[in-house]
């Protein structure tokens, strides 16, 4: 039995998931990262997210990816995140992402429709922060749902 650590995933309006986990993977601005128990302290930016102010400095080329938590009883929880932070301390890990959402609560059709809309706007040459944000939000959702099924 692998060692477990405490995970809390919080969105701005509510706590999304909380419990014991053996493993957690996420996509940060630097790439995919896996966290196991006793990981060293780390504060990492998750890929995607609001970009209005951060356009210059953040590694925005990377698209957001879902957070996957392998729970203590062997299930895996998939959470769509778009921007935010991964805060790891010795015995607890927090995923702080304003728009985090459980994959099972997302409607795939809706997310895909949003994605198509944003994609069309982007192809039309619209590169406003709002469009980029919609695009990231949609892609985060689609990825999370496809990962789940």
């Amino acid at each position, binding site marked *: 039995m692998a060692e477990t650590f405490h995970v*809390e995933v*919080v*969105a*701005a*309006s*509510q*706590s999304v998931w909380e419990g014991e986990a053996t493993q957690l993977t996420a996509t*940060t*601005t*630097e790439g995919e*990262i896996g966290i196991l128990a006793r990981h*060293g*302290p*780390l*504060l*990492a*930016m998750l890929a995607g*997210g*609001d970009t*209005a*102010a*951060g356009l210059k*400095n*953040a*590694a925005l080329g990377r698209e957001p990816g879902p957070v996957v938590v392998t729970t203590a009883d062997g299930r895996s929880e998939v959470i769509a995140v778009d921007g*935010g*932070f991964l*805060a790891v*301390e*010795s015995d607890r890990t*927090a995923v*702080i992402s*304003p*728009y985090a959402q459980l994959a099972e609560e997302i409607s795939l059709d809706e997310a895909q429709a949003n994605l198509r809309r944003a994609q069309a706007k982007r192809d039309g040459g619209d590169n406003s922060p709002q469009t980029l944000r919609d695009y990231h939000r949609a892609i985060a959702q689609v990825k999370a749902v496809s990962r789940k099924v």
Partner: protein
Amino acid sequence: MAASLRELRERNRSVRATQKITRAMELIAASRITKAQQAALQALPYTRELNRAVEAVAAGSKVRHPLLTEPDEIRRSAVLVVTSDRGLAGAYSSNVIRMAERLTQTLSHQGRVVDTYICGRKGLAYYKFRGREVVKGWDGFSDKPTYTQSDAVAGVLLQAFRKPTEEGGVDEIQVVYTRFESMLRQEARIRRILPLRVVHNKDEERQATPLYEFEPSEEIVLDRLLDLYIRNRVHFYLMQAAASELASKQTAMKSATDNAQQLIEELTRQANQARQGQITQEITEIVGGVQALSEAKTRNE
């Protein structure tokens, strides 16, 4: 008797109808407060985790950050005024507006240009009526702000703050909102959200803050964390204001219902008096008539 019986009854009916409406509004406000409080409660974990992360970075950090740096001179201030979309909430909006006016005056006296931002239809109407300039306004969510909406508001403010002063950027941001103290007490107050002041917790013995690794770098992490922190502050203030608005509305509607009740009792009493007066008069007339008749009869016999 001042008014006729019919008029009194009519007024009574109309007051009763109004009372039904105010009572319904009171109940609606009450049930929405519960929801607003729930929303505030559910947002707590996020705030907690975010503050924890900010503390962890800010405490050990020697990086100077624009959001944390007090400018040498404040030339332009942004003031966000949080009012309600609808009336019938007592003095809720006017209290906030009055405080905002005072603040604007004080800041102007200090030689600062004041940029006004407004949430809520009431505040917008007030400024528009007086022909005053509003940089940006939002409405439609004063009693139920979602994070997305607060995020939009905060985004605009942050952008104004990050712009250099020469290009019309602001050096500080103040928020005038109504704090929810309790169901019976809400207080308009002013809070400065930017630049931030870092307060180090001294009494809480820091168990040797672990040395964090940062991705992609300490500067960027701090920058984005503070950004999220400010957005969350704005959301917090908007939620507080929403709860206060609903509480004010409930109080206002409760006193309206009570007043209507008093009025109904008064009108009922007057109507009863008028009715009794009428009966007395009728009896007097009948008795008088009978007497007159019998007197006439005896005279004829």
